[in-house]
């Protein structure tokens, strides 16, 4: 399946684009996506954290992704 992933802040800088398209196997989880991103973009290894949001909620490692989900990379937040 094809996942379109929104990027923000330093994640967008590392990837060089505000949307990233990734091919994943059906049934892939947040954890699988994270591994794939760390492999494709080793710059993420240096970050304090990397979370994945699925449909505007924080996903946990076992959350299963589907085509059409709104997925976003959430690097360390710094609002306020």
């Amino acid at each position: 399946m094809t996942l379109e992933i929104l990027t923000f802040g330093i994640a967008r800088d590392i990837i060089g684009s505000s949307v990233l398209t990734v091919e994943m196997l059906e049934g892939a989880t947040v954890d699988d996506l994270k591994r794939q991103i760390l492999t494709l973009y080793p710059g993420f290894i240096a970050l304090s954290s990397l979370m994945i949001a699925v449909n505007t909620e924080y996903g946990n490692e076992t959350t299963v992704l589907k085509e059409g989900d709104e997925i976003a990379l959430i690097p360390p937040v710094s609002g306020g």
Partner: protein
Amino acid sequence: MLDIQLLSTPLSISACEAFVESPEVGGAVVFIGTVRNKTGAKSVTRLEFEAYKPMAINEMRKIAERALSTFSVFKISIHHRVGILDIGEVPVVIAVSAPHRGAAFDACEFCIDELKKTVPIWKKEVFEDGEIWVAAHP
């Protein structure tokens, strides 16, 4: 009652205060963030705030709902700004009213502490000689 907003225009502190004030409460506590002119020894030129908007609003609302259910408070207003902010401008205002002031202090501090931990908003500090995404690296 909640008033959660993400705005690209200057925040109105008095709008947040007006939302929470009521003759049924004894008082309100307001937190006003300010863009500092320095980070450590470095002079900051300006800040750029970026948000994942629908999720940022969701997360701010969740924090306010947790505050409402945890503390005996009456109304909460959280306004956060995005875009380019100059030194001295206000990125965030949190106002909380409560029948008893202790709960308003606790809930207001809880909201800003949690906001900084979970709300998907990112701050870039711009210096004369470069820029950094705050908190990105350990």
